[in-house]
């Protein structure tokens, strides 16, 4: 399924956060949205999945969702958004319960996604008993359970420590290489974008516009090889040059509100 953003703009009162955004997410790719803090990338993701109404423009989908998809546009949240009173299993079940699936299919879906995210032995654990990394695995398992057409990931690793982030990134990449789920990946972390994305859309700061879309022309599976490092370093510098000046302004800004 393709996701097409057409001339989307958004304002909070007087403040224009997004202006004239045109983007197309292609079937089977990971599109990273990157930009300095306050560029409205999370806002854009909210608009792309229909939980925020844009002030201007529209978002379209093209093509059919995969068979058995219960929720074509599915989020993975920065703060995991798990219900603390539900177990791992219960949190995954939350996304399925209102679809009136046969009990056997529901159990099968839960068991399947827990196995794919390495959570099978934690079925009965409550979120507070899990580390941050495991919590985000639950968030990913919950998203996979509904067989999404497009995964909308809002800085999914930024609440984790550096080592956990590496581990989870490897696991997510392995998962993605098997299934090639279309994904939009919002991040402020260049390394994550360079590791995962097929294309990186760089947003400018307030009002957020698409400054450039840069293709990472190396297969994800080869990016950790030594031979890829020179090319990746070039791309890193190009991306950094695009956002450096604005990140500097963002960093020196007094936060109001």
């Amino acid at each position: 399924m393709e996701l097409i953003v057409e001339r989307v703009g958004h304002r909070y009162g007087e403040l224009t956060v997004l202006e004239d955004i045109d983007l197309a997410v292609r079937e089977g790719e990971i599109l990273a949205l990157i930009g300095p803090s306050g560029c409205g990338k999370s806002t854009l993701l909210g608009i792309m999945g229909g939980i925020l109404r844009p002030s201007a423009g529209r978002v379209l989908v093209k093509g059919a969702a995969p068979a058995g998809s219960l929720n074509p546009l599915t989020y993975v949240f920065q703060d995991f958004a798990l219900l603390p009173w539900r177990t791992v299993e219960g949190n995954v079940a939350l996304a399925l319960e209102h679809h009136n699936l046969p009990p056997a299919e529901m159990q099968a879906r839960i068991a399947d996604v827990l196995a794919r995210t390495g959570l099978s032995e934690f079925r009965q654990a409550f979120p507070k008993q899990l580390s941050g990394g495991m919590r985000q695995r639950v968030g990913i398992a919950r998203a996979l359970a509904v067989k999404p057409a497009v995964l909308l990931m809002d800085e999914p690793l930024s609440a984790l420590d550096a080592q956990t982030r590496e581990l989870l990134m490897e696991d997510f990449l392995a998962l993605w290489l098997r299934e090639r789920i279309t994904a939009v990946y919002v991040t402020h972390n260049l390394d994550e974008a360079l590791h995962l994305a097929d294309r990186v859309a760089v947003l400018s700061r307030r009002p957020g516009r698409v400054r450039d879309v840069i293709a990472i022309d190396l297969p994800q599976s080869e990016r950790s090889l030594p031979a890829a490092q020179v090319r990746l370093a070039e791309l890193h510098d190009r991306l950094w040059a695009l956002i450096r000046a604005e990140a500097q302004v963002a960093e020196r800004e007094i936060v109001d509100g």
Partner: protein
Amino acid sequence: MADGPTGLRAREIPFRGGGFVLSPRRGAAILAFALVLAIWEVASRAGWISEIFLPSPGSVLTALQELIVSGVLWTHIGVSLGRLLVGWIIGTGCGLAAGLAIGIWSLSRAIGLPVVSALFPIPKIALLPLLILWLGIGEASKVATIALGVFFPTTIAMFSAIDAVPRNLIRMGQSFNLPPVAVLKKIVLPGALPGILSGFRITASIALILLVSAEMIGAEHGIGAFILQAGNLMQTDQLLAGVVVLSVLGLVVGTALTRLEKWLLRWR
């Protein structure tokens, strides 16, 4: 002491932390309590304290025993518990409904919030005479006083608890297409439960206070009425026995609520 590489004498750094940490002292409370009772008992027996103004712990205990054996106590407790329970349940039920409405609908919040803020500070016992005029001197006016007293704090606890449910959890539910009723049932209400339960703790003690006050104003039976009668007849041992019963009642309710909280909020 070891010499460092510079040849100077190494000194141990002084410890500056510690203190301001409270550790449990088991048994200290019981010991202090027993000590106070013992001094009180001795002072009574020695005649330093008048038996009429402040009977000794021993005679309060004897009075309590007599009340239990004769069955008088059970009648009073039964009547009181009935009023307490009916009043609390009505007040809580209405309060939860009103709090829910204020918590989720803008219009009911706009109307309900000023009303609640205006009526909450009125000491509800002041309305008892009016309620007696409306409902008669019988059970209804006492139950209504308790229900009114419980209603407002429950309403406030309910909508504050709903306000405290993280919005991102609600958005998450919506992003998985949960129907609004499911969002309410599976996300908002469980999320509000801790706040609701701490509201129960407050309303339980308010209900107890109003119960005793209402029973003292116009009732034949009930612990409040019993205490008042004992006072009028200068039976201070029975009076204090009634007070002990109230204290035990409060403790039992408090403990039950703690258990309930531990069980319902075991995910915390």
